[in-house]
C-alpha cells in the first residue's frame, strides 16, 4: 500500500516536470495525433473496398491524381488512396518502432545488468561484443541479409533491427548498475543470502527500468528510420504498406517531380513521428536526470 502511494506520488511529480517542458508537451501531442491515425487505420475495411490501402483501386481514376473530395490526398500510380496508405503506414511505423525498441531494450538491459554486476571477464567480453555491434551499420547489414535470404517479412526486420541496436542501451544500464552495486541495500540482500539472479532481477532491475524506458524512445526513432529506409530501397515486407514503401513508389514510378501531394505526406510523417519520439525522450531525460533541469528549480 505504502509502496503504491509512493509510486503514484513519484509518478505525478515526474509528470508535472515532464508536462512543463515544451518539448515534452509538443512531442506528446504529436504522438497522440499519430496514435489516432494508427487507430483510424483499423476502420478502413469498413469504409469500402476502394479505400483498402493495398488492394483498393478507384475504378474511375487508375492513375495518380491530386487531392479531391473523394481522395483527400490524391491517389497513387494505380489509383489507390494516399490518405488511407498514410493511416496504414502510421500503424506499421508504431508496430515496428515499439516492437523493435522493446526487444533491444530487453537485450540491452539484461546484458547491461549482468555485465555491470558480474564484472571481470564477463564484463569485458560483453562490452567488447557491444563495441563491435555498435560500429556495424544496420541498414547495410539488413541489405546483405535481404540479398541472401530474399524478401524479409516485417517481424524479421523488427528482430534484426533490435539485435543490431542494443549496445547503446547496455552501456548506459551497465554504468547505472555499477553505481547501484555499491549501495548498501545490495550488500544487505547479499548478506541475507539472496542469489545473484535474485539480486539482479529483484533489486537492480526496478532501479534501472526508468532509464531503460527512456532509452526505448530513442530506439523507437532509429528503428522507424531503418525500416523506412529499407522499404524505401525496395527491400521491405511486400505485404505491408509502410511510409518508406510509399516513398519508394513515388520514386520508382517516376512521379517524384510531378506529384508533390504524394511525395510530401509520407516523408513529413516519418520525420515528425521520429521527432516526436525524440522530443518525448529528451523531456523524460530531464525528469530522470535532475542536473539537466533549468537552474532555480528544486532538484
Amino acid at each position: 500500500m505504502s509502496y503504491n502511494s509512493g509510486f503514484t506520488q513519484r509518478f505525478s511529480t515526474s509528470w508535472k516536470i515532464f508536462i512543463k517542458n515544451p518539448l515534452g508537451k509538443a512531442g506528446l501531442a504529436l504522438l497522440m495525433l499519430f496514435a489516432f491515425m494508427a487507430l483510424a487505420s483499423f476502420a478502413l475495411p469498413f469504409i469500402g473496398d476502394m479505400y483498402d490501402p493495398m488492394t483498393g483501386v478507384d475504378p474511375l481514376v487508375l492513375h495518380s491524381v491530386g487531392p479531391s473530395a473523394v481522395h483527400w490526398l490524391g491517389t497513387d500510380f494505380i489509383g489507390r488512396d494516399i490518405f488511407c496508405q498514410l493511416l496504414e503506414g502510421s500503424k506499421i511505423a508504431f508496430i515496428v518502432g515499439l516492437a523493435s525498441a522493446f526487444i533491444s531494450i530487453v537485450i540491452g538491459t539484461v546484458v547491461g545488468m549482468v555485465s555491470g554486476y558480474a564484472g571481470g571477464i564477463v564484463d569485458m567480453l560483453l562490452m567488447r561484443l557491444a563495441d563491435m555491434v555498435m560500429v556495424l551499420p544496420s541498414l547495410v547489414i539488413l541489405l546483405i541479409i535481404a540479398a541472401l535470404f530474399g524478401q524479409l517479412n516485417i517481424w524479421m526486420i523488427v528482430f534484426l533491427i533490435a539485435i543490431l541496436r542494443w549496445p547503446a542501451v547496455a552501456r548506459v544500464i551497465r554504468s547505472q548498475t555499477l553505481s547501484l552495486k555499491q549501495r548498501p541495500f545490495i550488500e544487505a540482500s547479499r548478506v541475507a543470502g539472496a542469489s545473484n539472479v535474485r539480486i539482479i532481477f529483484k533489486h537492480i532491475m526496478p532501479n534501472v527500468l526508468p532509464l531503460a524506458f527512456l532509452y526505448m524512445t530513442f530506439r523507437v526513432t532509429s528503428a522507424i528510420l531503418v525500416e523506412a529506409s529499407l522499404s524505401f530501397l525496395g527491400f521491405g515486407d511486400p505485404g505491408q504498406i509502410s511510409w518508406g514503401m510509399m516513398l519508394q513508389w513515388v520514386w520508382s514510378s517516376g512521379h517524384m517531380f510531378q506529384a508533390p501531394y504524394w511525395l510530401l505526406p509520407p516523408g513529413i510523417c516519418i520525420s515528425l513521428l521520429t521527432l516526436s519520439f525524440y522530443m518525448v525522450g529528451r523531456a523524460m531525460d530531464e525528469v530522470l536526470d535532475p542536473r539537466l533541469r533549468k537552474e532555480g528549480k528544486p532538484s
Partner: protein
Amino acid sequence: MNRSLFLFKKTLELFILFFLILTVLFFLFRLAPGDPVTRMVDPMLTPEDAAHLIEQMGLDKPLTTQYMIYVKNFFTGNLGFSFHYGEPVARVILSRLPCTLLLFTTSTLLAALAGIFLGKLSAWHKGSRLDGVLSISALVCHTLFVPWFALMMLWVLGFQVGWFPLGGIISPELWIADSSFMIKTLDVLHHMLLPLLTLFIIHVGSYLLLMRSSMLSVLKEDYILTARAKGLTDRVIRNGHAAKNASLPVVTSVGLSLAFSINGGALTEQIFTWPGIGRELIFAVSNNDYPLAQGCFLLIAAVVLSANLIVDLLYAWLDPRIHY
C-alpha cells in the same frame, strides 16, 4: 602503457572484429537457402569457366578447406567476379571507393566543424532566442528521414530552381570534349554540392546538440571560474578554455555515429546516383550480384573500422589526460 602499445592493441582489436565479420559472412553465404555455388559463380559462365572458378574458390571442397581458401583469397584481393560487370569485384569496388571517400569525409568534416562552432554559440547564449532557434533546428535535422530529405533537395534545388544537376558525378559532354582540368574539377564540384549539402544538413544537427550539452557541462567547471576571476575576456574563455575541452566528446561521437552516417551515405548516393560504394551495394543486392554485394559489404566494414581507429587515435592525441 605507451602510445605504440595502445596503437597496437586498438589495431589488433579491430583486426579481430574484421575477422569475425569475415567469418560470419562466410557462414551466412553458406546457410542461406539455395546452392552456395550459384551465389559465387555466374550462372551465365560456360561450364569450363565455371568449373575453373569453383576450383579456384574451393567450392567443391569441405567447409574447413573452403574457409581457408576464402580467407586466403580475401587477403590476396581475390573477391570473385561480379556477375553484372564480368570484372573482378576488387577492381569494381576500388574504382568506386574514391567517390565515396570524397563525399563522405568532406561532409563529415564540414558538419563536425560547423556543429562545434554553432553548438559553442548555442551553449554560450543559453536560453536566448538564438539558442532556441539553433536547438530546435538541430533536433529537426537530427530526426529527418534521409531519403525523403534527399528527394526534397533534389526536387526543390535540382528540379524547381535548377541550380544543380539531377545526379551523377560528371557531365559526360564536358569530358568527351577534352576540357581543361579546371573545368572538369568545377564540374565534379557542381555535381557534388547537392549530395554534400544534404549529408551536411543531416549530420550537423547531432554534432550541434552534442557540442551544446558538452559545452554547458564544461562551463560549470571550476577552471572556467578561475579564468573569469583572472579577468580574461569572454572570447578567450569561450574559445580557448571551454570550447577546446568541450569538443572532445564530439570527436568520439564522429566514430560512434559512423554506422549511422554510412546508412545515410548509402541512401544519399542512391538518390543522387553518386557512383560510390553504397550505391553499388544497393545495385548488387537488387540484381542478385552476390560476389559484388559481398565485396561492397566487406569494403564498407573495413572503412568503418579504420575510421574508428583514426578517431580513437585522434582522441588520444587531442586529450593529454588520456593514459593509454
